[in-house]
């Protein structure tokens, strides 16, 4: 083929599709993108290092055995005990109260939004519910301490009224705080249940409730469990509500929810705001408790991620 023929034909001259100069800009940009992605990995590494190093140092002084079996947490008193159980128990109690509220309220809202509400109602209600998720937790703490608690004490049936700061009120506020998380994720899971399953059920003469509870809920179960697990993990890690509303008492293992008690997060915040000096054992306790909290939420996250993945797999 000659170039003359090319011109006659009005076709571009002998086409070269070979690589010209290397596209350096493209490479540079890709490197930048990788770098940005690595920030998140660096964060995790940073967290692990900043927790692990002082924690190891802490366990150089305090035995792991004492940490997990001792029932007193008094690192800042003359007679020091380093049993994390009181903090852990308080954390679990507050979380349990929160979850007891958030699961029914969250799931109920989710079922309503996904199965009952019309498009317009949903479009209106869902953002409002999401506002609840966006309110700073200090505000929840403030409200719990100064409004919910007095009210609770007023209506409290027995003589022994709830303390000024108590786990119950913190749990209630926290439960309502995680309602949107649970509701929104559970609703996503339910919406992901294919329409065809619902139609199949309706065609068998099911009522709405039957479709919701017997078909949609079971089919969305792993997604719903993931939503709940995520809610639990948020409750475990919540700090301000418990600091403000449940207090910092670390008197052995406290199980009565109308008493105040320090959760792991509240202890960290309480001890940390005094800005304990570096290198003291007091300072190290923050990291030891932080590590415990981190491990707990890590396990829950892993569980929730697996659940979400499972429910995605079912239909996709």
């Amino acid at each position: 083929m000659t170039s003359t023929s090319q011109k006659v034909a009005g076709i571009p001259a002998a086409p070269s599709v070979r690589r010209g100069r290397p596209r350096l800009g493209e490479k540079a940009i890709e490197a930048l993108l990788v770098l940005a992605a690595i920030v998140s990995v660096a964060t995790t590494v940073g967290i692990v290092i900043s927790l692990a190093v002082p924690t190891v140092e802490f366990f150089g002084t305090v035995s792991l055995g004492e940490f997990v079996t001792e029932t007193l947490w008094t690192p800042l008193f003359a007679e020091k005990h380093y049993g994390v159980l009181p903090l852990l128990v308080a954390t679990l109690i507050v979380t349990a109260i929160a979850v007891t509220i958030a699961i029914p309220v969250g799931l109920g809202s989710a079922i309503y939004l996904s199965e009952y509400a019309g498009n317009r109602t949903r479009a209106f209600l869902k953002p409002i519910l999401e506002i609840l998720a966006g309110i700073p937790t200090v505000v929840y703490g403030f409200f719990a301490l100064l409004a919910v608690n007095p009210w609770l004490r007023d209506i409290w049936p027995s003589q022994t009224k709830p303390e000024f700061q108590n786990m119950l009120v913190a749990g209630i506020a926290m439960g309502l705080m995680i309602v949107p998380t649970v509701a929104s994720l559970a609703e996503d899971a339910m919406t992901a249940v294919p329409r065809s399953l619902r139609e199949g059920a309706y065609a068998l003469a099911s009522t709405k409730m039957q479709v919701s509870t017997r078909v949609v809920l079971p089919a969305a179960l792993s997604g719903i469990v993931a939503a709940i697990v995520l809610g639990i993990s948020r409750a475990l890690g919540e700090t301000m509500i418990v600091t403000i509303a449940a207090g910092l008492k670390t008197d052995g293992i406290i199980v009565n929810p109308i008493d105040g008690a320090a959760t792991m997060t509240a202890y960290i915040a309480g001890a940390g705001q005094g800005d304990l000096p570096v290198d003291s054992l007091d300072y190290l306790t923050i990291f030891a408790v932080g590590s415990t909290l981190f491990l707990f939420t890590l396990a829950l996250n892993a569980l929730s991620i697996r659940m979400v993945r499972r429910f995605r797999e079912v239909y996709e």
Partner: protein
Amino acid sequence: MTTTTNPRGPSSADVRAELTRRRFRPAETAFKLALQACLAIGLAFLVALLAFAVTKGWHRLDARLWENMPTGRVSRAGEAGVQSAIWGTVWVISLTAAICLPTGVLAAIYLEEYADNTRWYNRLLELNIQNLAGVPSIVFGILGLGLIARVIGLGFTVATAAVVLSLLVLPTVIIASREAIRAVPQSIRHASYALGATRWQTVSRQVLPAAVPGIATGSILALSRAIGEAAPLILLGAVTFIRFNPDSLLSAYTTLPIQIYNLIKEPQAEFQELAAAAIVLMLVVLLAMNSIAIFVRNRFTKRW
């Protein structure tokens, strides 16, 4: 023809009777009411919370909020305001936005447009981000305290706070941006490539502009979370008494949620009211941000 399974001809009257028999389904009604109650509880709590803050803070919702006198002089508690906390929030959040938005969006672009997700390291990256999204904020505070303030030596400054808050909301920004990017149909990318565009040209000229509303929505929500965040900052020196506005990245600072936390602790009723007023201020800002996010989501997100 005969059959045992199905009655032959039901009479019209029978059918009419059966189809129109009024069935009272109490469980059905109760269930629906219960569901509505669930929603009502959430909404009632929201309303009660707003009402409480507004009534309590009502007569402090005026120019005094802008005064710069925190809790120093009890005799003048009635004149105290939260100016330095507002400025602190503005500084910290601006810097947070400047750090986490580009990082988050770039990371999202990498994961969606460049990463080969059959590679273990990319899957790990993804898993890591999901995990990070669930790490409690106080743990980020510990990261800031142990590593950024102490080891790196940024101290208890605006910069440290912004870095910590950026890392805290980074997963949210990444996840939201990824979703927005993923929502851009493949056909747009293919059209661009078919015109001889390079990958970055395709991303920067087609994918990103189309994903902007989604990214903006996610970013606004992430930043509104950062604004309200107090726990990590408690560990990062924000609780100290500060009555001056930050003037550099290495300034000491306080923020609105922290100042609210401080005010709640004061015994004077004026300070409680000021706390309520500051809460209303913060809620107004957050509601505005949420509304903008929802508006952007509804108005500009393309349905392809």
